[in-house]
């Protein structure tokens, strides 16, 4: 059978176009519906994790003000907040949500190459979320040993949720990994094989490069989590001792002994560090497109941006043990991983310079997506620089397990990706719904979120310098911490409640705007990429009407001298270029 590229096949959707409500919105195989299902589920669990963080903050800022927050619940809230935010919100929303929505539209295909697998991916994801949430209702409650689930603590009796809650957590992670693998194979294959005519690899928008590389990272990194989850599950349920060392419990020698807890840490962080970039790389890609569009300039150093994404992806597998400087591993390891950690800062810094240089002398439109994108540059530089502190063994040792670490990773992989998510949600909202959001409300939302998160995390750095330990339910006899630290903690809590409340503006905005008349403007931003050139807004099933688009140029033809408008869409041939492949030259 001769191979026919997907783009040249007849419209495959004519055969299974959905007719009923169920096939259209529930068991849908349309990538746009699946994207919204993924996104909705992720935001829903994200809100639960946000609520847990507020409860934690209430305990820290105003100790014992809520009587039912006991130490066990506090640890469970810490654990579930971390795990949900990192895996079930950020990974799922960037790759399952934006990956699903943007890959076929930006590459110019009608759908993913395996639509059924794509649907299955979402349902497995939903199942994993349900299993995770079910752990709130089992005896002993959900897992409570921190999101890193370090053995032996996490499965030792006496740790909150070390029984059923932990088991459900591990099962849920395994199901999530199956879901991610199904989705990931789909994203990579679609990007490699199904791009439309003229869409060469280097004409792909940076969003696609970010999502592509992050998916490849995920496919390589999640098996490490699967291996550690399976082995930890064996230790928990079947009484093996992969990770369990000899321990004394209540004066009795444990039956499991001889295992290696540090093996678990290596396996976990071999997943855990690439996971940071699984979240960050799609954010880098999306924010690049938002910045270029609203600065009306081509992205500065496109090729450098692509290679930086790939370099960061490769290096991210060589830095994992910088999370383990205080674990008692060989000091030479620490030296090696500190070096690789500092090296990974180079491509990352290149990207930051290129964003700033894209803004330089641009015709900047300070609308809501652009504000969030610029806010991201601030928070990312901030969190990235503290990362250089912590990447050095000698500085990390005193700062490890203090609030400095909490401030660092929330700045760099909490606030920064979330700002990009908002930038992207506002930016693509008109395409997803056919309606414009309320600009004023969006801007208020931005300033509350941006300034509010600084009010939360900037003081945490100082708490860290004071030596305030993280993950403590309350301060005990810690004389080295001055009493003013408590005042700072109370302020942080107030700021956190303020920021959490401000997110209501986002939901009011998107739901109120849904009730408006359809504006039906296909390309409100004057963007060049293919998703803005669809015949219908929001795009119909199959995306492109009878004929697929043809791509004649790269994704960043903004403000081209001599052009009629300040942007030229990717599928615009241009009079002089119609037939032949043309080199523009450097005149």
């Amino acid at each position, binding site marked *: 059978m001769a191979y026919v590229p997907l783009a040249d096949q007849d419209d495959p959707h004519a055969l299974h176009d959905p007719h009923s409500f169920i096939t259209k919105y529930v068991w849908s195989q349309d990538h746009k519906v699946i994207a919204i299902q993924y996104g909705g589920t992720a935001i829903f669990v994200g809100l639960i994790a946000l609520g847990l963080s507020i409860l934690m903050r209430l305990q820290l800022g105003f100790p014992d003000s809520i009587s039912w927050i006991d130490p066990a619940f506090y640890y469970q809230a810490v654990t579930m907040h971390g795990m949900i935010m990192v895996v079930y919100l950020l990974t799922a929303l960037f790759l399952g949500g934006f990956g699903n929505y943007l890959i076929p539209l930006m590459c110019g295909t009608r759908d993913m190459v395996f639509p059924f697998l794509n649907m299955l991916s979402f349902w497995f994801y939903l199942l994993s979320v349900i299993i995770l949430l079910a752990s709130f209702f089992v005896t002993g409650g959900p897992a409570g040993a921190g999101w890193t689930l370090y053995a032996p603590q996490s499965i030792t009796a006496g740790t909150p949720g070390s029984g059923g809650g932990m088991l459900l957590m591990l099962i849920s992670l395994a199901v999530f990994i199956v879901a991610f693998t199904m989705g990931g194979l789909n994203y990579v294959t679609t990007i490699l*094989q199904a791009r439309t005519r003229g869409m060469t690899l280097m*004409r792909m928008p940076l969003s696609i490069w970010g999502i592509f590389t992050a998916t490849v990272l995920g496919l390589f990194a999640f098996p490490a989590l699967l291996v550690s989850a399976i082995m930890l599950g064996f230790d928990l349920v079947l009484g093996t001792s992969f990770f369990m060392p000899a321990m004394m419990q209540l004066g009795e020698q444990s039956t499991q002994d*001889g295992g290696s807890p540090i093996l678990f840490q290596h396996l976990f962080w071999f997943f855990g560090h690439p996971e940071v970039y699984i979240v960050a790389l799609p954010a880098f890609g999306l924010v690049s497109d938002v910045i270029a569009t609203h600065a009306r300039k081509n992205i500065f150093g496109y090729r450098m941006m692509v290679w930086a994404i790939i370099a960061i992806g490769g290096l991210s597998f060589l830095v994992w043990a910088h999370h383990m400087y205080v674990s008692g591993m060989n000091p030479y390891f620490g030296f090696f991983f500190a070096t690789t950690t500092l090296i990974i800062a180079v491509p990352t810094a290149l990207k930051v310079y290129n964003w700033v240089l894209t803004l330089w002398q641009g015709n900047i439109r300070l609308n809501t997506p652009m504000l969030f994108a610029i806010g991201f540059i601030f928070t990312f530089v901030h969190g990235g620089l503290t990362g250089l502190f912590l990447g050095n063994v000698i500085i990390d040792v005193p700062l490890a397990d203090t609030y400095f670490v909490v401030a660092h990773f929330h700045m760099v992989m909490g606030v920064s990706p979330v700002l990009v998510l908002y930038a992207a949600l506002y930016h693509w909202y008109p395409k997803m719904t056919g309606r414009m959001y309320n600009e004023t409300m969006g801007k208020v939302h931005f300033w509350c979120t941006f300034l509010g998160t600084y009010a939360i995390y900037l003081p945490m750095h100082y708490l860290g310098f004071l030596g305030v330990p993280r993950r403590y339910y309350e301060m005990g006899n810690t004389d080295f911490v001055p009493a003013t630290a408590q005042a700072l903690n109370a302020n942080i809590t107030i700021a956190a409640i303020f920021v959490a409340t401000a997110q209501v503006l986002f939901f009011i905005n998107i739901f109120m705007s849904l009730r408006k008349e359809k504006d039906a403007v296909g390309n409100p931003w004057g963007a060049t990429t293919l998703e803005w050139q669809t015949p219908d807004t929001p795009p119909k099933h199959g995306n492109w009407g009878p004929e697929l688009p043809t791509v004649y140029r790269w994704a960043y033809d903004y403000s081209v001298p001599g052009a009629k408008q300040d942007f030229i869409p990717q599928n615009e041939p241009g009079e002089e270029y119609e037939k032949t492949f043309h080199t523009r030259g450097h005149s």
Partner: protein
Amino acid sequence: MSLYRQVTEKPWDQVGLPDGIEARPTFQVPDQKVALVLFVIVACVLFSLLTVSYYLRIAWGAGDWVPVSEPATLWVNTGVLVACSAVLQWSLIQARRQEAIRLTSMAGLLFLAGGLLTLVFIAGQYAAWQTLIGGGYTLQSNPANAFFYLLTGVHVLHLAGGLWVWTKALFRMSSGADAGDSRLSIELCTWYWHFLLLVWFGLFYVLSTT
């Protein structure tokens, strides 16, 4: 355009259509084959990590490692798995010669036999487990045993996944699917079985030398 030229071009310099009008996938093979190769890479990562954990548990554990004495059944099972791969390869060769592929044709029957032999392999692994348990090598008693059950179990699970695809392919063949589709199914299954055979060689080596 070669992959190297594609990723080194200066996209801002070029307007128009490179290499004519037809759409170009990155690799000139069916999408299913790309996805299978990707999955095999992911599975390689999984088995590598399990193997690394195996050696690290020996190195970093408390010296409690007591090697398993592998039952002789494993040699028989290895032979069966080699036979699976060989029969499937034969089926693929037949499928490439045949115009139409039916379940009752040579290719179809060999394909069926390959899957059935896999079931024999799985039964053989189960028998090996029973022998070990009978000999007192229980899951809890030693990490070497635990790893033995874990590694062989994960390998069998991968074969079971392959058998699921195999079953679907059989159903399609018996309901008279397009010959091209059936040939692709047979090819993908054969590749996957060869891969799992190589994994088994690796695992068998690791398990029997430590």
